[in-house]
């Protein structure tokens, strides 16, 4: 029970940390006043995630970090689709930036990270382990 409660807090905690990181960036760029909405957004998102994470649904299980094998597969497929969409968006952004002679490094960075993460994923999850042929 305790472990389930802790896992339900994982996503909200990440939201708080991300919101605080965003707020810190806003403080540096625009000052304290502008950072308050950014932090508030993180807190609201964290509360929403916590409440949603308690629901008896597939999405609730994913938010609450208590997925079973089917929900894990579902999440993995959705993440894969999200990754593919991100790659396509970065590629389009790169082409537009080249055409407009704008800086391309953000798109190169995104595409580079995705390519490296894909190759690392193959290595980590065992695609390099070719089993010897047996007759």
């Amino acid at each position, binding site marked *: 029970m305790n472990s389930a409660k802790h896992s339900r807090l994982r996503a909200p905690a990440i939201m708080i940390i991300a919101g605080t990181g965003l707020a810190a960036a806003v403080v540096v760029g625009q000052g304290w006043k502008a950072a308050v909405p950014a932090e508030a957004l993180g807190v609201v998102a964290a509360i929403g995630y916590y409440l949603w994470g308690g629901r*008896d*649904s*597939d999405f609730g*299980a994913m938010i609450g970090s208590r*997925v*079973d*094998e*089917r*929900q894990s597969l579902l999440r993995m497929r959705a993440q894969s689709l999200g990754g593919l969409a991100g790659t396509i968006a970065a590629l389009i952004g790169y082409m537009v930036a080249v055409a407009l002679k704008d800086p391309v490094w953000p798109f190169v960075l995104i595409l580079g990270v995705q390519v490296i993460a894909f190759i690392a994923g193959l290595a980590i999850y065992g695609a390099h382990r070719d089993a010897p042929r047996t007759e």
Partner: protein
Amino acid sequence: MQNRVREERTQRGISQAEIAAALGVSRQTVISIESGRYSPSLPLAFRIARFFDSTVDKMFDPEDEVDP
């Protein structure tokens, strides 16, 4: 993949929530398995078979089985 999960469960008067708790999966997954929308992994298939004192080949029938 066709299976006898719903049939066996209703025969025993067990709810989807009860079998989900016993198998360590969500109620939504039990629903998906019963409706044939999700084929469980081998470990889960064995857990289901054991739960009903049966065997995997009796509980599950791959309707689109491919000849070797």
